[in-house]
């Protein structure tokens, strides 16, 4: 079957799978940011927690994605078949770049600026919110951008546990030995990743201070 004719014949289906994919990625990223950024802020001043949090995120990153989806299925509450399990796995994957960049951004600030803040009588909390965070924003954004691209890619595998999205076409195409069907999932996923990467790169540049 010709890829182009499959595309035009299944436009509505591809569009709804793309939307499903976006929702999956959007929810996962939102949760990962809500966990990753505050945790990154917290570990700036807590060295013991820092080792644990960064270690955990690192270990998760080393688990092959298909295996992680598989591992989660038997776990009560978090697991099972479907979208919820997929979101848990995607959040875990997105966590490392966000957490690490938040931490690196907050701690990689010119010591002279931090000393000035301290000498002017700012409290630790004020320094974190008024100095560290605004100066770290572009680095944090870079982490979110990496996480977005990873999540869009890994989310295609979520179809293996019935979470839907563009991966549905890829798995179906593999089963049918049909390039056209695989491409119907792969091309929109690749385009999504490229567009998201470009848009977030722009945002990142606008947030850069120096």
């Amino acid at each position: 079957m010709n890829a182009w004719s499959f595309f035009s014949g299944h436009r509505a289906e591809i569009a709804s799978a793309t939307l499903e994919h976006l929702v999956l990625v959007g929810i996962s990223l939102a949760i990962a940011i809500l966990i990753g950024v505050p945790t990154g802020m917290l570990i700036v001043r807590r060295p013991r927690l820092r080792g644990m949090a960064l270690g955990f995120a690192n270990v998760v990153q080393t688990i092959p994605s298909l295996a992680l989806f598989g591992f989660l299925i038997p776990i009560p509450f978090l697991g099972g078949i479907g979208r919820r399990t997929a979101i848990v796995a995607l959040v875990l994957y997105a966590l490392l770049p966000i957490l690490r960049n938040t931490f690196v951004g907050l701690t990689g600030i010119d010591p002279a600026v931090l000393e000035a803040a301290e000498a002017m009588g700012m409290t630790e909390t004020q320094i974190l919110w008024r100095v560290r965070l605004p100066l770290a924003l572009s680095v944090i954004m870079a982490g979110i951008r990496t996480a977005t691209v990873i999540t869009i890619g890994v989310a295609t595998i979520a179809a293996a546990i019935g979470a839907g999205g563009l991966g549905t076409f890829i798995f179906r195409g593999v089963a049918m030995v049909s390039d056209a069907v695989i491409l119907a999932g792969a091309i929109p996923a690749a385009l999504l990743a490229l567009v998201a990467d470009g848009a977030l790169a722009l945002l990142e540049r606008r947030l850069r201070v120096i």
Partner: protein
Amino acid sequence: MVLLGRSGSGKTTLLKLANRLLLPKAGTVIVDGSSTAEWDPIQLRRRIGYVFQEAGLFPHYTVAENVGLVPWLERWDAQRRSDRVEEMLQLVGLDPREFAGRHPRELSGGQRQRVGVARALAADPPILLMDEPFGALDPVTRAELQREFASLARRLQKTIVFVTHDLREALLLGTRIVLLESGRIVADAAPQDFLTLEHPEAKAFAASLEAPQAQAIR
């Protein structure tokens, strides 16, 4: 008062002890009648203006936000704050209309130092600490700022502790020169008496003053 000494003689350490960026291992540092160990560090630091060698301005704030920071921390209302920022910028010779909205990266080194001085003075602290504030500037700008600051300092009537390794600057700005060597005070003199001191380190500094001319004549 000017703290004079070579690099590593303890000038900056002494300044940091005064606003409790450092606490002494032994002995006490008395500011306004109380030991810095007893002062609340935040309260203490807001009563002490600090000017850094590289200005230490916040790159993500405009000039106005930098200058208005301590008043903001002290919860001044917006009107009083912006009036004060304007007053401070005029005091250091920067036109508020032109500079208030700029970011530090859009300023020259000399302008940054002026903003640094304005920021340190904004909340009208009784004490001002200055750590080689003109050290990183080109000689012409440095001389300009030194002259202006000398007259500003006379008008301000504040306790100013000024760190430098440049005797010329110390003589120009100081009403009292304290010479440090390896963490110890080795001389404490009025500027007009400094050049006649017998201590070897004082003589070494006096010689540094004369050396270039002497070589030029030969």
